[in-house]
């Protein structure tokens, strides 16, 4: 659990982060969104004390984050920096091993952990371990950056626009990987982005920042349904709202009785994908299949359109 209480950061006279309070539940993903310069990075960096706040307290599992030296605190928190920030003079394996080495793990344990993470991220440890960062593609560099942040099995992971520089296909894959890893290790993640799509997709809760202030902190559905201000409304994108809302739900939650013609859609696909398929193929309904391949029923255009309407 991370408790941010009345955090403020001023540089000279300009207030960059203004009296922000929020609580991030353990084993959840909180996404911070906002326009560029709204103070997202600064807020994130106050959690691991790369930036010292002007006022306010941040507690990790009930303990003030100033109760131990900054560098020790940071060794216990994963940090994936904007633009990966890999050390260009160290190999991939050495990069990933950074924090374990700082923590003084023994060699065998470090090697085992590096191999485990590289395998997890589909990088062959034999082939890629000895390479230097500039010998990797952008997507691979990004994965190494996240692997490095996860190396010492931190309970908390801070990520600053980790997928910003990736092309859409690789970005989708990276997002799915991250969700899978978060489930598996139960890591608490705070992720900064300026992409609302990403926020809705990844976040258990979304914090919207504007000019240093936290304007809304709520579940994605609530942000979409009840934007707290005109700013949030624009950020969500008025014309995108219904589709974003649909993207939050699974097809299995929208199944109706009956049958339909054609290829079946899996029950765990998003309702938005189902609607897109329906509109594109010009059909009124699609069959739905379960994980075991058995038919569950069907989804209809009418049914989905109702779900895309503003919740009461």
């Amino acid at each position, binding site marked *: 659990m991370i408790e941010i209480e009345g955090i403020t950061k001023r540089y000279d006279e300009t207030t960059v982060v203004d009296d922000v309070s929020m609580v991030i539940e353990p084993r959840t993903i909180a996404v911070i969104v906002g326009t560029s310069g709204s103070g997202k990075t600064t807020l994130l960096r106050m959690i691991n004390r790369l930036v010292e706040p002007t006022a306010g307290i941040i507690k990790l599992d009930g303990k003030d984050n100033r109760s131990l030296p900054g560098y*020790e605190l940071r060794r216990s928190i994963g*940090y994936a920096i904007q633009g990966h920030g890999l050390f260009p003079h160290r190999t991939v394996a050495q990069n990933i091993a950074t924090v374990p080495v700082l923590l003084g793990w023994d060699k065998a344990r470090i090697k085992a952990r590096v191999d485990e993470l590289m395998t997890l991220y589909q990088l062959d440890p034999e082939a890629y371990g000895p390479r230097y960062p500039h010998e990797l593609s952008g997507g691979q560099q990004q994965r190494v950056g996240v692997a*490095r942040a996860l190396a010492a099995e931190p309970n908390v992971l801070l990520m600053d626009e980790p997928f910003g520089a990736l092309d859409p296909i690789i970005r989708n894959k990276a997002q799915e990987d991250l969700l899978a890893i978060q489930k598996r290790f139960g890591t608490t993640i705070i992720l900064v982005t300026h992409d609302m799509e990403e926020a809705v997709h990844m976040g258990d809760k979304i914090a919207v920042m504007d000019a240093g202030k936290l304007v809304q902190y709520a579940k994605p559905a609530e942000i979409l349904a009840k934007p707290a201000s005109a700013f949030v409304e624009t950020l969500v994108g008025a014309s995108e709202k219904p589709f974003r809302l649909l993207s939050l739900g699974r097809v299995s939650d929208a199944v109706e009785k009956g049958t339909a013609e054609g290829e079946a859609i899996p029950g765990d696909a998003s309702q938005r994908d189902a609607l897109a398929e329906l509109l594109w193929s010009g059909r009124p309904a699609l069959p739905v299949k379960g994980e075991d391949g058995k038919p569950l029923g069907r989804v209809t255009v009418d049914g989905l359109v109702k779900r895309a309407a503003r919740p009461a």
Partner: protein
Amino acid sequence: MTIRFDKLGVVIAAIAAYAALVAPFATFRANRIVPGEARSVLEALPTAVGPLLLAIVIVGALIALLKTPLVLRLAASVVALIALAILIGIAGSFLTPAGNTFARISPASGFWLLIFAFTLLLADVLTRLNLSPWARVGVLVVAALAIGLLLISGQWNSLSILKEYANRADSFWAEGSKHVTLALGSLAAAVIVGLPLGILCHRVEKLRAGVLNVLNIIQTIPSIALFGLLIAPLGWVAAHVPGAAALGIRGIGTAPAFVALFLYSLLPVVANTVVGLAGVPRAANDAARGMGMTDRQRLFGVEFPLAFPVILTGIRIVLVQNIGLATIAALIGGGGFGVFVFQGVGQTAMDLVLLGAVPTVALAFAAAIILDAVIEMTATKRRVETA
């Protein structure tokens, strides 16, 4: 098939043709300081040998002139250079009248131009071969060994520069070691002081402009003036600080030269340390802090290794510059190869000038090649991608 010319080859062939056919190959002087008489290739070498050299030069020039494979060009330049090196010695013995110890034979403009032309060819081949750092150092070692062999064999003993050497063999090595000590010692001192100073300037922004400006101004003071100006304060130190004189600190001599070289060396070392540290990618630095490195760990683990090639470049500048500047130390009694240069200028004895200048250039050249190789080796693996 059309004949195609190599553009550089045209230049080389023209120089070689002029040098071999028009310019004098060697100079004969009845004694050390009288004006010399020119001797052409055919006059300077025994009957059969002169035409042989001309043949080698012509074939070499033709190979350079036409578009030929690199290996052939390499062979042509190496053969020509070796032939020149051996034959100038033969010219020396051939032109020296038997039993005459006053006559001086020295290489003349034709010889030097031929050396220049074929060195150009060799340099071009080596550049195009794009040798690895190790290979370049290897070529340097081979060349040094070949020259050393020629020197030891006595092949060149009849040449005037070696006669000057023979008269001064002891002082040559003494001044040489003084020269190297001055250049390397001041470099070491500059690194010991300059690195921490550079790191300090990097960390403390207020200090940076001030320190760099002062060091910049020191660089603008002409070397002979700086050498001279240090005589007074060091003389004072020698006279008033107990033990200083025993350490060899004197107003005149090596001490002011050492201090002056040290002061000149500081700017490149400090400036390159600052530039190198400033060039460390922000993200890498940020990541280092974010991973929980202490300031020390970050300095030695991230900043320093990444800045190292740039710092080395500064050290290379300093070393090459110091080897050259150390010649000036002779003017204030600091010793070094400059002693021969200035004595030679004073006596208008050019062979003596060469005795000082040639080893200085050779040292600087070798230092540059070796350090360039080291820089390339450290930089390749650490190539910083520009994102």
